[in-house]
């Protein structure tokens, strides 16, 4: 009995450092942010302000634009990317496929470049006289250059294209790893029963991979809700505030404009609340279909 107790104590010692660090750098600042969001004032002179910051948020057109933009990215980009990643992983999982290693590495490669670096590259590739417009013009797909960085609609499309380019291969690796654990005989049986590729994809692959799809959906959702590097380096949030994200607005409120930490903290709670809501929805979705 004594031995068991001492083993249990030893276990606490193993997890102690991690618990201290996560508490100190996640939970404690989170609590501070919550307190801060009820305070108001410029710089270090803060005083209690009740719900003023949250009231201001509801009437702040820039904040609402940032929330709308973030939603647009989320709702379009995450499903498109997950479907693409699933599609590529199924194609790559074909045992007879040649050059498999090349295709896999090529599609994964965008995941090794830093967000800032690829954002700067994309900004130049998609400039009005950039190579993407030249390419589209040469193929006669467009008759005049698209103003990727200046047009409110195309600027959002560009941000979505950029994130999808960067993360599809990364998510694909998770699905490929999971597909290797799927019993091949399931597909054999389905083929014998006359199921075509699409039916196999929707009725076998997706249900089998549901846990890992859920995991990637949640991590991608959390990532997109916090989107910062790309709009900051591709469009600077422009034109106007048409590509501004919530994280970027919080950064501007804290470090670009006259620092208003209390209000910035209140805006950051929008991301916290959205993260919790989306995570609950995604867990529910899994529960319902089971």
């Amino acid at each position, binding site marked *: 009995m004594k031995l068991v107790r001492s083993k249990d104590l030893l276990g606490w010692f193993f997890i102690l450092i991690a618990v201290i660090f996560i508490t100190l750098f996640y939970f404690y*600042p989170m609590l501070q942010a919550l307190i801060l969001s009820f305070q108001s004032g410029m710089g270090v002179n803060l005083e209690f302000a009740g719900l003023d910051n949250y009231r201001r948020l509801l009437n702040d057109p820039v904040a609402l634009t940032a929330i709308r933009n973030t939603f647009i990215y989320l709702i379009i980009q995450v499903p498109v990317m997950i479907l693409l990643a699933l599609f590529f992983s199924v194609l*790559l999982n074909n045992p007879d496929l040649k050059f498999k290693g090349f295709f896999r590495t090529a599609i994964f490669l965008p995941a090794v470049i830093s967000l800032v670096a690829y954002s700067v590259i994309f900004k130049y590739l998609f400039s009005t006289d950039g190579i993407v417009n030249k390419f589209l013009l040469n193929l006669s797909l467009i008759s005049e250059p698209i103003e990727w960085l200046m047009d409110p609609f195309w600027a959002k499309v560009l941000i979505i294209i950029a994130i999808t380019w960067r993360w599809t291969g990364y998510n694909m690796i998770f699905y490929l790893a999971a597909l290797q654990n799927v019993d091949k005989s399931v597909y054999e049986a389905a083929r014998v029963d006359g199921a075509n590729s699409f039916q196999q994809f929707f009725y076998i692959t997706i249900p089998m991979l549901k846990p890992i799809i859920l995991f990637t959906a949640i991590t991608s959702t959390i990532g997109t809700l916090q989107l910062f590097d790309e709009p900051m380096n591709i469009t600077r949030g422009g034109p106007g505030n048409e590509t501004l994200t919530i994280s970027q607005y919080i950064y501007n409120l804290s470090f670009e404009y006259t620092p208003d930490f209390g209000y910035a903290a209140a805006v950051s709670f929008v991301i916290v609340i959205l993260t919790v809501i989306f995570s609950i929805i995604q867990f529910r979705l899994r529960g319902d279909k089971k």
Partner: protein
Amino acid sequence: MINWKSIFTYVILSVAAFVSLFPFIWMLISMTNKSVDITRGSLMPGSNLFENLSNLFANYNVGSALFNSFFIAIIATVLCLIVSALAGYGFEVYQSKGKDIVFTILLLSMMIPFAALMIPLFRFFGNISQVFPAIGVDTLYAVILPYVTTAFFVFFFRQNTKMFTKDLIEAGRIDGLSELGIFFRIYMPSMKNTLAAAGIISFMNNWNNYLWPLVIIQSPENQTIPLLISNLGSGYTPDYGVIYTAIVIGTIPTALVFFFLQRFFVEGMTGSVKG
């Protein structure tokens, strides 16, 4: 008979590979070209590489940015592997009800967005500066400390520890090893794939981190590679050749880490997916 399905597969994958690779090919070609040729959309390698390199090193703090990024990424990764492996092992091997509750609470921290943390953390390090300026605002340690471990890595190690043969622990105890001895001499050496996978992820995250260094670093000599590239990219009269050269130099380390450890990466990932 023509196999349309396999033609379709190869066409799709080739297009995907081309789209994925094109920005890399473009930056490699562009680092050898003059700014004017890049604007013109030249797809032929030029002879301006040496000049771009010397302009970059002469006019910008690339040397110190490289040093800073390596320093941050290596120290943060080593600390992350040790601290997260200890915790993942502790949660799985010494499982108890109390620890499971703590584990669930730790997992909740994965939902906390960094945007909510950055202001309190900035103020926290501001306070530290008053007492220990060596690890306060505008130091490399301030960049590292919040990333020493995250709930993701603790979770990752716990999942992979499920596949670790527990009999080895008993064997170690019989051989008279201490509990920490078992961890360092039996567990760690047998977790190479997991360590490699977590190591790649941590190195890349820290090497590529942008928002937190942007907030906490102020002086040019403490800049990291992403800060330098971002500054270069936001200039009004950009020298494209120099910028692409900086981007290539900043991407080489993560690309090398990935290529050398890729085999372990896929295996390590498979482990965490199985659990």
